Every structure is written in structure tokens, then in C-alpha cells.
């Protein structure tokens, strides 16, 4: 626990934190209502990043594999959701509210189930045989699967952007002293929160969830307890795929997306998972909301703010800074390979 850092680096870190706090407080004082509005946007970014980051962290936790294909699975799931929702169910901005909500829920369930199967299939075809191979082999395979999924998306959907941003109205739920909150923002949380509650229940309380935790902590010991390790790993991939699909639909309802959207978003979500301590579910969410808020503050605030051109530099700069001080991430445990 007692790791001494050179005084200079510590001072620098402290200075950065102080600067960040001054900047946030300054902005809050400058315009409290703007600050709160931007915070709401950050929560939504964080929710989408979090759903994707959980997939990275679940798979890393159980296989110590960075599943580079995960971001592309997310993007493809958003595009498939577009097909379901807009092409097949024919939901438009003019659809009645109940029809729209029902259509979105059906799409959500179908997409989650479908991408659960897709992701479990990816594991079965691409990763299972490599489980006892050197870790680099699986990693390179993951990069390959990433390209394959991305190009499948390109082949089906071409380079055009798809979106369904108008389906959830942007009308205000409440306005109070310059602070306002819209339905489309609330909707993201209305989907995310139950999904997270279900996930937590699954991992903590169910037999399969416990098998997942046991397998992540010691795969051989799990097998000796009579846990079917292959099935447990399949279920973990299914879970990650379903989470990615829920994020894909939410993204589609808020932004434009196309075949390569998953590349950058996947990297950010992966960063969130590392920031929180990879392998740790709560950590992935903490990292995701941290990054989501930083992004929103940087793009939305006005008092001495670098602006959106700097978002990536700031996000990854913070990643580097945190990893210098806590290589295991915010909530991560120090492991032999991670320390």
C-alpha cells in the first residue's frame, strides 16, 4: 500500500486536481443553471459508455481478454435496432406515443436477445479454442473479429449514418430557474437503471451469477466445484452482448451512428473500464460516468473551457494521470500483472 511517488509528480497531480476543482466551482458560480443542465447531459453520456464498458470489464474479468470487437458489436447492434425499429416496425416521429414506446421496448428486447446470441457465438467460434494459447493470440484474434464485425456493418448499412433521434420528444419535463430536463434525457436513464439493477441482481444473487464470479476469481477452482466453465463463459459473453445492444439502441435514439461508430466509442468505454479498475463492475460504471461528465462539462460549459476539440485529449490525459497514481484503476484490485 505504501508506494512512494517522487514529490514532483505528486505535486503535479495535486495541482491538476486543484485546477479541476477550481474550474468546476468557477463554472458553477458563473452559471449554476448551465452547470446543472450540462451535468444532465453528462449523465446520459455516462449511461451509454457504462453499458458498453460493463461488457469490456465482464469479459476481461472472466478471460483476461480485451475484447476489441465489443465496440463494433455495439455499433452493429445500434444499426440492427434501426432496422427493427424504423424499417420493420415503421415507428416514426408521428407514431402515437404508446406505439413508439411499445416499438422501442420490443426492439430493445429483440436486439438484446439477438446480440446476446451473436456475442456468445463470437466467443464460441473465435476465442474458445485459444483459451490456453498465449494471451497475445486471443488479443490479435479480437482485433480481427473487430474488423470483421465492422465490415459486416459496412456491407449491410454502407457508409450512411442512421438515427432515430426524433422518436423520443425533446419536450421539457420541468423547467425551474434556467434548469430544464427533457423526456429524451429521462428515457436513457429509464432504460439504463433497470438494466443495471437486473445485472446486479443476476451477478449477486443467481446461481449463474455466482458461477460467473467464481470463474472470474479462479477458473480451475470453479471447474473443481462442478461449475461448467464453458457455459459460464458463454453466458458472460451473452450478457456483454445484451448490454451492448441496450447501449446501441439508446445511442441510436440520441445520436447519428454508422458502421465505424463503435471504434471510438469502444475505445472510450474501454478507457472507462480501465479507469474504474478493469474487471470491477462498479468501477466500469464509475469510470464511464466520470468520462461522460468530463466530456459534457468540456463541451457544454463556457467559463474557461477548452471546448469539444479538446475532449479526447482531456479524457485520455486524465486516464494517463489516474493510471500514474493508481495503475490498478479507481476501484481495481492490484493483481500480479496489473500492479
Amino acid at each position, binding site marked *: 500500500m505504501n508506494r512512494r511517488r517522487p514529490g514532483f509528480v505528486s505535486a503535479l497531480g495535486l495541482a491538476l486536481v486543484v485546477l479541476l476543482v477550481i474550474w468546476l466551482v468557477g463554472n458553477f458560480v458563473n452559471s449554476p443553471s448551465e452547470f446543472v443542465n450540462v451535468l444532465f447531459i453528462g449523465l446520459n453520456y455516462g449511461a451509454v459508455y457504462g453499458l458498453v464498458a460493463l461488457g469490456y470489464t465482464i469479459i476481461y474479468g472472466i478471460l483476461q481478454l480485451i475484447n476489441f470487437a465489443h465496440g463494433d458489436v455495439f455499433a452493429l447492434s445500434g444499426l440492427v435496432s434501426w432496422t427493427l425499429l424504423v424499417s420493420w416496425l415503421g415507428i416514426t416521429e408521428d407514431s402515437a406515443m404508446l406505439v413508439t414506446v411499445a416499438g422501442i421496448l420490443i426492439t430493445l428486447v429483440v436486439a438484446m436477445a439477438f446480440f446476446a446470441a451473436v456475442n456468445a457465438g463470437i466467443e464460441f467460434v473465435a476465442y474458445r479454442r485459444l483459451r490456453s494459447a498465449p494471451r497475445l493470440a486471443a488479443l490479435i484474434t479480437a482485433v480481427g473479429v473487430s474488423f470483421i464485425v465492422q465490415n459486416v456493418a459496412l456491407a449491410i448499412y454502407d457508409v450512411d449514418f442512421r438515427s432515430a433521434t426524433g422518436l423520443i420528444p425533446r419536450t421539457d419535463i420541468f423547467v425551474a430557474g434556467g434548469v430544464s430536463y427533457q423526456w429524451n434525457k429521462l428515457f436513457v436513464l429509464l432504460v439504463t437503471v433497470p438494466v443495471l439493477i437486473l445485472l446486479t441482481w443476476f451477478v449477486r444473487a443467481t*446461481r449463474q451469477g*455466482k*458461477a460467473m*464470479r*467464481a470463474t472470474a*476469481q*479462479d477458473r*480451475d*477452482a*470453479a*471447474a*473443481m*466445484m*462442478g*461449475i*461448467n*466453465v464453458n457455459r459460464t463463459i458463454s453466458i458472460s459473453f451473452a450478457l456483454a452482448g445484451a448490454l451492448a445492444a441496450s447501449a446501441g439502441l439508446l445511442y441510436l435514439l440520441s445520436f447519428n451512428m454508422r458502421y465505424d461508430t463503435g471504434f471510438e466509442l469502444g475505445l472510450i468505454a474501454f478507457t472507462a473500464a480501465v479507469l474504474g479498475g478493469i474487471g470491477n463492475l462498479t468501477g466500469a460504471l464509475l469510470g464511464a460516468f466520470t468520462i461522460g461528465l468530463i466530456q459534457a462539462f468540456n463541451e457544454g460549459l463556457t467559463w474557461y473551457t477548452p471546448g469539444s476539440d479538446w475532449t479526447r485529449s482531456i479524457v485520455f490525459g486524465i486516464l494517463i494521470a489516474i493510471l500514474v497514481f493508481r495503475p490498478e484503476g479507481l476501484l481495481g*484490485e492490484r493483481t500480479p500483472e496489473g500492479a
Partner: protein
Amino acid sequence: MSAAQTNGGGGVILRLEDVHTYYGAIHALKGISLDVREGEIVTLIGANGAGKSTTLRSINGLNHPRRGRIVFQGRDITNEPPHEVVKMGISQSPEGRKLFPRMTVRENLEMGAFQRRDRANFKEDVDRVYSLFPRLAERRNQNAGTMSGGEQQMCAIGRALMARPKLLLLDEPSMGLAPIFVEKIFEIVREINEQGTPILLVEQNALMALDAAERGYVMETGRIALADDAHALRQNEQVRKAYLGET
């Protein structure tokens, strides 16, 4: 000594016939044959790297033999996956304990019963483990990774018992423990056996192991070098020199 424990009295529950197992390219087991009978403690002793743990990994399905046969209660289990082997009634306390460090003692015990469907007797079995190891009862809500080595070993044995095994594999239960804990662990190993569970005991502490066991096998570089009654092995000149530290 009860009837079930006399040598040759019980039927053979586990039999290995000419088992060859590889670790990657390394030929780790070069034709192992051994028996475990109902009610007995059989010990497998030998130097580091002789293949003791590999023998257990061959039995429990983590490392399937390339040649030979493993028969448990008349069924060929040579190529069964580990979870099926556990279901049939073989459970193990592995070398180095291998507890789930970020689960509580109670959750670890729960994982030991994973393959069992009779939830009703779960409580009863947890209580049995707690009465064997009162220390575990005190620590039930503590994460297993935070306990001392001796406590972890108790938890690992308790976890293996939760499967209600018909055969218990114990891999180096005394490794790294203080002498007082070693005594305690061997006492409990005998107690578990007296309650009716046959045990295959892998040990580096050959003296303690031969004291506890009815029969023993001595392994050397992937082969069985000697097989005899535990008492006879204790008297054996070679064994005394190589494993009991006598000159």
C-alpha cells in the same frame, strides 16, 4: 479399525490403469496405476514434480490422460469434463487452496455445493463444516482471501466436503502451515474418513501422511516407484532415506 477400513475389505471405488498424461509436450505421467478402496485413506507421496498433482488433475478432468483409463464406481470417467466428475461424487481441495478470494467463507462453502440439487440439506452441511472447523463459523462473513493460511486450508477442505463427496481428493493440505495447524488438519482428515469418506491424500509431508493412511504409493518422475501398506512404507529403507528425512 472398522470393517470398512481393513485393507481389501472395501470394494475398489477408484481405479487408474496405465494413465499417461501430458502437460503440453511434457510427458508428466508415464503409466500410473493405482486403486482407492471404500473407506480407506490412500496417500500419494513423492518429491516435487513427481506428478502427484498431475495425477489428481487427471482424475478430476482438468487434464485428460492421452492413454489409459480412469474408472470411478465402475464408470469410465477418463474423458469426462470436471463438472461431470464432481457431479459423480469426486471433490477436491486443491493445492494452494484456490479459494475464491473475494467471496465470503459462506459463499465459498456454497460454491462447494454448486453441483448439488438438494438445497434442503445445504444448511445441515454448512453446520457440519462449521462443527468440524469452528473457526470458519466465526469467519463466515469474512472474505476468504483475507484469512490466514491455516484458516484458508480449513475453508478449502470444508468447501470440498460441501459436495458430499463419495471420494475426497486432498492436495497438499499441510503445505505452508504452522506445525500446530498441520496436526489439526490431519486430525480432521482422519475424522472425515471415519465418518465414511474415502480419501486420496497427496502430501509432501510423508511422515504425517503415512501415519494417517492405510496404504501408500510413492511416485518418482511420473511413475509409481513403490506401492505398499503405509506401515510397510514407513519401515522401507528407501522411503525413510528419501522422504522421511532419516539417514
